């Protein structure tokens, strides 16, 4: 079963410049898909469309087989945003935040699973970047979603925190059968860990096994002599 199906999707913020152009792909149940593309390639815009925050200018999007225009069961989708512009003085603790979206028992389970027990009583804004990402992942997992959309979940984290989050994602994919779609600029990590790669630069340049993506990525980022003009 395809959890996501995108058909001929185009999108423009101002009605003139297209951010996404005739994008089509499908994500099967259990897939771990890495989304790679230069800045401004439309990756975050694609996620915002998949989450219903933006409406496509053209084309169709289906979630769990249902047209996104009629889709209401958002608890089946977990989302970790790229950057949260939370007010600096936001006072809630990790436990309070998790309790907003999950019952007490589930909060305990999430804290154990994501190794958050050591900082569950601390305020969110006083945590390190890696700890904050874990909390966001915990909130995304609270309702037991089948599909996870992660927008650069390891950006700006140190190597240890990056590895910790990737281990958790691999566990979710392999042992819990979650379907994951993850935007990342860390090409090496993506190629090593995912089942499929979606190379996006307004259009889909490649969608398939990681092995076949290398040449396209090199071209997309201008890493091959005389090729491409994308930003690394």
């Amino acid at each position, binding site marked *: 079963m395809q959890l996501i199906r995108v058909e001929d999707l185009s999108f423009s913020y101002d009605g003139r410049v297209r951010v996404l152009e005739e994008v089509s792909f499908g994500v099967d149940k259990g897939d771990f898909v890495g989304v790679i593309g230069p800045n401004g390639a439309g990756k975050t815009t694609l996620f915002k469309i998949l989450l219903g925050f933006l409406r496509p200018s053209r084309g169709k999007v289906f979630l769990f087989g249902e047209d996104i225009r009629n889709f209401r069961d958002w608890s089946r989708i977990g989302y970790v945003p790229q950057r*949260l512009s939370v*007010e600096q003085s936001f*006072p*809630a603790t990790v436990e*309070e935040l998790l309790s*907003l979206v999950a019952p007490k028992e589930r909060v305990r389970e999430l804290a154990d699973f994501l190794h958050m027990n050591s900082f569950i009583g601390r*305020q969110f804004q006083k945590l390190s970047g890696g700890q904050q990402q874990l909390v966001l992942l915990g*909130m995304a997992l609270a309702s037991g979603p089948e599909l996870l959309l992660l927008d650069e979940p390891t950006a700006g984290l140190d190597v240890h925190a990056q590895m910790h989050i990737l281990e958790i994602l691999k566990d979710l994919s392999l042992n819990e059968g979650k379907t994951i779609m993850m935007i990342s600029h860390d090409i090496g990590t993506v190629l090593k860990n995912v089942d499929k790669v979606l190379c996006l630069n307004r259009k889909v340049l490649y969608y398939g096994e990681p092995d076949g993506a290398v040449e396209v990525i090199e071209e997309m980022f201008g890493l091959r002599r005389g090729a491409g003009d994308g930003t690394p």
Partner: protein
Amino acid sequence: MELLNYDFVQRGIITGLLVAVSCSIAGVFLILRRMAFLGAGLSHAAFGGIALGTLLRVEPFIFTALFTVLVGNLVQAISSRRRIPGDAAIALVFSGGVALAVLILGLVKGFGEYVFGYLFGNILMVTKEEFFFTILSSVVVVSFFALFYRKLVLLSFSEEVAKLKGVNITLMNHLLISVSSLVIVLSIKVVGIILASSMVVIPALTALLLGRSFMSTVLISVVVAVSSVVVGIGVAFYYDLPPSGSIVGAMILLFSGAFLKKVLKN
């Protein structure tokens, strides 16, 4: 202490305490939603409502509450569609409200004498109608925050996350603005139009410096507001001063203490 036996004094104190509780809870959410300036904007818009109510010869307090809730929702509607920035929309109703009041001031004879009480507040001049309206409104405001607490905290954290967790963002924003408009109108009676936003902003700001969790922040905000009202009224009686100034003065003192504590700790 003999003063406490008078009906109008009791009404004033209870009104002050109820408004303190309502404003201090609303303030935490408004500051975290980066809407602190809303208090100043809507209290000045309310000035236009008071003048219009007087011109139309209707009960000004209730009319102003409805007028301000309407204006608040207008600000929310035009700023949420990104037609104009939120702070600019607030500035617009701020000047629009004052302009309306000034125009009516020129048209209605005798309105000038009556304006002073609204500009600086007079907690000891609360009528029975205003008193019952304050009780009813405070029950509505506190119930709203108790009922939608989780959704409102989630909304203050991230609109995107809140939407995916089933929060109706548009409805919740409009409800929050309606309730906030109501508390701002209530605070006019206690401290007046000019100082109304201080009832909403200062206790919450103090609590955000001291709170170690969301719930404790809300509770500290209520304690700061209630104690400022008690101390402010006491000082005003003892030294024969205007209560509005002494209430806000007490709030400023508590904020300064909290700020100093934070600076010394860091």
